[in-house]
């Protein structure tokens, strides 16, 4: 109940501020908001929303996993892209029947993302580079590497663009109404995360580490090991999201296509907003996805610039941070 009020007040405040902005630019706020809602959840829009929600919720979950232990993974983009390119390479070059290749490609994405994120954990454990920095720094070379691969060894022979060839027909994740069937994988990951988080000793140890790191060490939780494990899970999930992305439309890796939509940053925000709780993270991710697709629909319908939704989104978060206890400063040190 109070939780609802904690969120409702900032939401109302952000909407009000948005309305003022809209009035200032001479637009009817109700019409604009109506367009966002119908654009996000209307019969035409819900597919768009879900299409955004799959990568955003996937990345949000990926980043929530270590965040539960107070560890911030800023390298989601690199892990996402590496997962995507690895899945693609397997899908293109490993022989075998289609379904087997799809599974292998997904696994390759998971393994690549996991290994790369674990490397960042090792940087912290062995070389004392804080996770926040090691994940961030490692992200850029990964993106460059993927760019290099689609430019040279994995390039699309028929095209002049920095993109890979399309995966053959059988090696694809089918779509349902424009939404990739990868959505079931993402939902499954979130469900597993929710159960592990709430019901298992491993989830419990993760939370204890997030509450009080020194207490966790005292209690016998091996932080370096946990860091490697959580980062591997995080990077693995990010890699899975990347794999789902390339196995879905347009069935190829296009340089930059997973970066420009800011899936990672919006996902991180969703995870932070929800304090990394599994269902809260999902909710926040879907909310942001709806705001984005609704924003485009609003722009198409009413001429109001879609950046308004980006502004609304950020204002909302800042109001939330300011007025509610949803994410009060934790005993977290960089």
């Amino acid at each position, binding site marked *: 109940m109070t939780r609802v009020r904690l969120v409702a007040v900032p939401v109302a405040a952000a909407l009000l501020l948005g309305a003022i902005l809209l009035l200032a630019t001479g637009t009817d706020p109700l019409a604009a908001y109506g367009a966002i809602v119908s654009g996000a959840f209307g019969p035409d829009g819900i597919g768009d929303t879900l299409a955004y929600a799959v990568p955003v919720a996937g990345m949000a979950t990926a980043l929530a996993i270590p965040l539960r232990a107070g560890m911030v993974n800023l390298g989601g983009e690199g892990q996402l892209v590496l997962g995507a390119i690895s899945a693609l390479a397997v899908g293109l070059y490993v022989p075998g029947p289609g379904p087997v290749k799809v599974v292998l490609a997904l696994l390759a994405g998971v393994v690549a993302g996991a290994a790369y994120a674990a490397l960042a954990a090792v940087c912290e454990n062995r070389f004392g580079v804080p996770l926040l920095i090691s994940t961030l720094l490692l992200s850029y070379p990964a993106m460059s590497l993927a*760019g290099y691969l689609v430019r040279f060894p994995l390039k699309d022979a028929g095209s002049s663009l920095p993109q890979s060839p399309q995966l053959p027909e059988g090696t694809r994740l089918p779509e349902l109404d424009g939404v990739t069937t990868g959505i079931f994988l993402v939902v499954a990951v979130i469900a597993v995360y929710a159960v592990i988080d709430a019901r298992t000793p491993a989830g419990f140890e993760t939370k204890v580490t997030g509450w009080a790191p020194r207490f966790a060490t005292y209690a016998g939780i091996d932080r370096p090991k946990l860091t490697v494990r959580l980062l591997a899970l995080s990077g693995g999930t990010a890699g899975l999201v990347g794999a789902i992305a390339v196995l879905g439309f347009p069935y190829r890796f296009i340089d930059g296509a997973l970066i420009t939509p800011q899936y990672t940053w919006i996902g991180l925000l969703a995870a932070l907003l929800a304090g990394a709780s599994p269902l809260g993270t999902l909710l926040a991710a879907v909310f942001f996805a709806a705001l984005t697709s609704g924003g485009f629909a609003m722009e198409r319908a009413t001429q109001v610039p879609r950046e308004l939704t980006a502004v609304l989104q950020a204002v909302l978060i800042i109001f939330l941070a300011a007025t509610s206890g949803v994410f009060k400063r*934790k005993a977290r040190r960089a």
Partner: protein
Amino acid sequence: MIDASLFSSALTALTPILFAALAGALCQRAGVFNISLEGSLLVGCFGAVAGSWYTGSAWIGVVVAVLAATAYSLILAIGSITFDGDPIVLGVASNLLAVGLTSFLIRTVFGTEGSFSDPTLQGLGQFGPIPGQSPLVYLSWLAVPALAVLLYRHPWGLRLRGVGERPEAASSLGVDVTKYRYGVILAGGALCGLGGAQLALGSVTLFAENMTAGRGWIAVVAVMLGRAHPLGVLLAALLFGLAEAFGFRLQGIGLPQQATDAAPYVVTLVALFLSNFKRKKGQPA
């Protein structure tokens, strides 16, 4: 491969990073973890161009940039200090807001999209002995010793470091922790404003959506690598700037662009490893 223009372009490239990293170092010293540098820089860029455009004076543009970025940093200040919000959440949010807000403002203020420029837009121009450098470049170098003196030779610096280490102890000695923290965040905003002005009116003379292109994040890394000391931060920014400029050269001799893109980050990571190794020595196992 190595010539005057390498240093000159490295110098231009590192100035916005240096300003932002100094801002980050100042905040770090006072115990504020500031990752909103990217957003503050971008707001500075926009303020600089808007100010210069409407007044016809690049210097007023710089002033507007400083004011805009300072005002923008209030988000982090009010959110994290007054309302005790998580600085990482606020930082990530304000970086995203900066992109959305400046894109929104280009539309509403300049009536265009993507980028804004005009041949009559006044830039900072060149100045001083090093060709191609704006006055802000020199200012950024002056800011390094100035901040070092402030931090280590001025009573404020002492108090600020105390606030960073143990706020409750500082407050029990009559030092207003809130005021100091607001102070560093706003001063950090002002420095980012200068960095943004350099990027938008010194390096080039225009505003483009998201034109900071990750420079604020590099500054966050530089704060870490430079151990939040003004001189250290300068060296870190210099290392990054040189690695980048050197990468451009390597492209010239046939390395693919993607390899040279990654170079500065790899160099920085290696530098972090090495600096930690050195520190580890002489400590108990």
